[in-house]
């Protein structure tokens, strides 16, 4: 059997653990794919890495991938990392003594997000809209997630749309308080992150893609049975302190992609918020799992 080498770009988010486990436990290798995992500094450069050929596969969030397609980059996706609902603590963190209780109180306030135009940002906006707030009345700025606690304490921002472990840490430090999980607006089954490659590479290596799909399915099964090994992989790839990792809840593991269920929500959201100008043809975009 011919072997394929693949460089896979990821960011240190626990949601991507199926890929780590599949690599650590040799599932990829079992299916003829030698995967080299490479950490990207931030999510926004993952697609660029794939397009330039530095990596063959990347793990961006769906909105990013949709925008890339809109702007003429021909991409394919073949699996999801994890799917909603999120199990971990995500939510809008506000100052403990700020008096902000609900979305409506954020009008006129400054809210930090990890990346404007990123998944958390657009979702948070959608949440604001669903709570009857005009997004234009909220000042949305970027901050790095690790600074969630410090930024609120220093008064740089009034609230942060954060995720774990940063949101829990801010709460534990007594700096902040959660006022609601904005990720609730996302329909169950939507993909949180997807495995993306270029159309060109996908056409040339169909068997490698199938191999990876199978390996990811095996990894998901493995994680459900072997908690300790899975946490080891998390520690290795996030370099988070071990006590933090011990308390991290596992994500809702994904796998096969259903165009409408997995990505339909993101496609419409991106259109509504003006990130794309027409809906992306999801059936071309998604490479389905092999039917056994």
């Amino acid at each position, binding site marked *: 059997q011919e072997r394929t080498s693949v460089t896979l770009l990821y960011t240190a988010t626990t949601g991507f653990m199926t890929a780590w486990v599949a690599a650590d436990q040799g599932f990829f290798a079992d299916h003829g794919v030698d995967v080299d995992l490479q*950490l990207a500094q931030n999510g926004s450069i993952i697609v660029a890495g794939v397009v330039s050929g*530095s990596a063959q596969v990347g793990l961006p969030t769906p909105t990013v991938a949709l925008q890339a397609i809109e702007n003429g980059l021909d991409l394919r996706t073949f699996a999801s990392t994890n799917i909603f609902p999120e199990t971990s603590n995500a939510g809008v963190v506000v100052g403990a003594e700020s008096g902000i209780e609900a979305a409506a109180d954020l009008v006129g306030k400054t809210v930090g997000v990890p990346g404007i135009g990123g998944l958390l940002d657009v979702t948070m906006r959608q949440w604001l809209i669903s709570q009857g707030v005009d997004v234009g009345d909220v000042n949305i700025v970027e901050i790095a997630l690790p600074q969630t606690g*410090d930024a609120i304490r220093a008064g740089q921002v009034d609230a942060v749309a954060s995720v774990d472990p940063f949101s829990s840490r801010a709460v534990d*430090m007594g700096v902040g308080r959660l006022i609601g999980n904005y990720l609730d607006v996302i329909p169950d089954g939507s993909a949180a992150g997807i495995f993306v490659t270029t159309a060109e590479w996908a056409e040339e290596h169909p068997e490698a893609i199938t191999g990876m799909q199978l390996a990811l399915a095996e990894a998901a099964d493995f994680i459900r049975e072997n908690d300790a090994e899975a946490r080891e992989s998390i520690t290795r790839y996030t370099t988070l302190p071990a006590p933090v990792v011990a308390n991290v809840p596992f994500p809702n593991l994904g796998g096969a992609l259903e165009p409408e269920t997995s990505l339909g929500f993101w496609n419409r959201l991106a259109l509504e918020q003006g990130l794309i100008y027409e809906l992306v043809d999801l059936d071309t975009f998604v490479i389905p799992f092999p039917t056994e």
Partner: protein
Amino acid sequence: MTALKGLALPVALLVLWQLAVVLSGMQSDTIAAPDAIFAALGRALTEPAFWADTGDTLAAGGMGLALGFGLGTLSGVLFGLIPPVGRVMRVTVELLRPLPAIAILPIALLIFGFGYRLEVAIVAFGTCFPVLVLTEAAVRQIEPRLSEVARALALSPGARVRKIVLPAVLPRLFVALRLAAGIGLIIAITVEIAANPIGLGARLMQASNSLRPADMYATLFWIGAIGWALNWGMLRLQLWLFPATRGAAQ
């Protein structure tokens, strides 16, 4: 003695910092006390991976600097010596020169992907133009009498550059090189922070993302130390290369 004086102020600042952290009993994901930082640095210095990262940054930055500095001096000398060339290129250079290297990162990323090539290209772009401008100015400001001596001796263009132009501009070229090295290091680190998953910048970013401020500041200190050592080494080199400056005391 002089070295001691130089150390006084930084040491005082460090002590103040340590005191501030201890007294305020601060617990934070972004600030660490000097003692924790030095402990982290000590630990890092024994890791091979740390040295590999240092090597990556120096190699990528160094290659970029070599390329940028080479291109910059060459075109600077050319532009300075043959004013028509400099004048014709003027608007183009002036338009490209101030472009922040970091603004072309998104595009460079799509072309070069990750790794050395990306970093080398951006560092070269970022250092080439400052060097060009400084070299051109230095060449223009050569004592006109010396240019006349060169003309009177009918020195060939090559000899003119080697015997008159370069020695006359070398001290200023060194200032340019020192500056460019600083800029090169900044750009290399910035590229690594923003995109390139190699080197000290990536380590810095990783430390900051995984809530290890002591490691982050240790890396920052290390970067500072490298820059400082680079500069110090170049000053030595200058004294060694230009013994003629010794008579300038009078």
